[in-house]
């Protein structure tokens, strides 16, 4: 299955809504942990990487992991140094970044070639 055939914009958007929602509602760890960790590992990256048009699932997933972890870390570090450290708020901000990327994918897909 090609990574391009996965509707990444929709998947990322769903995960970006679900992960903060589970954190905010205090969902059981058994549910919250896998959703949040998978989102943090792939969500922000797969929000943007399909825009590159790499056409190779291994390349897309690999670079997405790198970008995701970098975005997670950058947002968390910025919150810490700003004196505004709060894990759930940080998660909401990361989700907002991912939603922005997913929206860009939709805009690009809707644009005539």
């Amino acid at each position, binding site marked *: 299955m090609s990574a391009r055939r996965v509707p990444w914009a929709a998947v990322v958007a769903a995960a970006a809504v679900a*992960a903060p929602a589970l*954190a905010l509602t*205090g*969902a059981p*760890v058994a549910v*919250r*942990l896998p959703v*949040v*960790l998978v989102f*943090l590992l792939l969500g922000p990256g797969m929000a943007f990487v399909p825009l*590159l*048009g*790499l056409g190779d699932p*291994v*390349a897309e*997933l*690999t*670079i997405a*992991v*790198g*970008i995701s*972890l*970098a975005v*997670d*870390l*950058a947002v*968390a*570090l910025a919150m*810490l140094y700003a004196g505004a*450290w709060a*894990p*759930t708020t*940080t*998660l909401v901000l990361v989700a907002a970044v991912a939603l922005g990327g997913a929206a860009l994918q939709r805009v690009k897909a809707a644009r005539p070639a």
Partner: protein
Amino acid sequence: MTLLERTAADLDGVPAVPARANVVAIRAAPWLAVGGSLVLWTLSLPGVQPRAMTSLGLVSVLPATAFAALALLGVSFCVTVWRRPASSALLASHVVALVFMLYALPALVEPTARFAVTWRHAGVIQAILDGSYRDAGSNPYFEWPGFFVLAGFAAKAAGVGSVIGAANWAPLVFELLYLGPLLLILRTLTIDPRLVWLAVWVFYLGNWVGQDYFSPQAFAYLLYLIVLAILVTWMRPAGWPGSRARPPLRAALIGIVLFLFAVMVVSHQLTPFALLSSTAVLVVARRCGARGLPAAMTVILLIWLAYMTAGFLGGHSTEIVGGIGHLDATVGTNVGSRVRGDAGHLFVAQARIGMTLSLWAVAFLAALWLRRRGHREPAPLLLFLAPFGLALVQPYGGEILLRVFLFALPFTAFFIASVMRRAPLPAAIAVTLLLTGGFLVTRYGNERMDWFTRGEVSAVDRLDALAPAGSTLVAWSNSLPWEARHYTAHRYRSIVSSTAWARIGALPSGSPRQIAAVARYMRSQKGGAFLVLTRSQAAEVEITGYGPPGSLADVDAGLRRSTAFRRLYANRDASVYALAPRPRSAP
């Protein structure tokens, strides 16, 4: 079957159309081997008794069925690579099974997180997230905090109180994450997909240095591999064979490379220098067309060093620049100081040196051989050699050669696999089995002192509860599960690492004179001192030669007899002591 696979299969003389009756068996056999080896492995582990380990480490308590499982998987992988037009899914399943068997082993047989440093890293996360690090003074963990902030954020967001419970799974997770960039890198070095998987196989069998535990190095190494994958895949200069990314994609990828590099810079001291040197080498050799990258990376690095780590660098300038050019000192601290201890540990240490030097030697000779045969891709040799420059600059606390091995490993593995690929099947199987045995000895050779029992953890918990903030916590040696709580509230000291060790270590174990010397050492500590002795420290003392077998038990007995100490807590695996109040002298 792709054209490349068909070409590779034809080269091996695989029959184009096997007999129909054999087709099902031929296709099913390797899958059955993967499944069978996993089942056999899993069934082997419940009987493993870590307490029975000798100085050879985990290999001394693995049952024969565990070795049989690894051998079955190794033979199946080699046969699959050599004799079959194998699919990537089949080869990948072998590799993933191998990674699970080799790297999840401690998580499956040990009750708590291994490595003293893992526990310290948990304490650093807590200190950063609760803000107590601001009063902790100069500490490299707090000046390169990226990984700890990321891990703390992920744990808290996922609703997990501490990372300790999952820390033993970190090697498995990191190694699986390394697979993607490894495949990308290796696919640019050869058109033979089976050579790619063979190199990945060798990488996992050769990664004995254990830098994939819950640590900034493991995280930074992932970023290192991803950036190298981007550079060798999409940053080919104009005129270089193979596809070259179009300008908008190149610009985006350069931005991603710099973003990942910046994240690496805030997370780890050494890896940015390794990546910078590798990138510079690729640019100088005209294998990377993004010629401004080294300069941009240098600027990012200098900005962080100048503005965020000045306190630490200023206080440690002698240690940092004092090692430049002192290769003899680097070799001494990296090799000489490690080859000591009891007979089992000496064997492990020599196996590590032998395995490292053998892999490097074979890889280098293979690189020269490939070049003579017309392999003109310069990237693997450049990236194999680039990390060695680090050893000229820094001993890195006696670990630089381990890190050089790690940074060069993807390319070491590629060259070794290139030789293996041309060898007959029995030779390849023999090499695989040899590397597997070597991995188990070298990787888990210190396990007797690296693993911790629940009793040891309970004793440290008790110590944490008893010791008031500002006190000094003292251990005999360094291997124990402490520093995970109140990291900044205490000073942590080990007697074998102190200047007092020369005198204390020279006295008979547990003798009144030695106990009196320990008492004097503890009285010299600030804030009141507490002493904790554990099974893992006893193992460390014996394995690494700080004392003869049973010497820490003698110390424990001497402390119990002494009126200078009072025992606050004890269980089967640990004791906690404090200094007894001094009797008042008569008026």
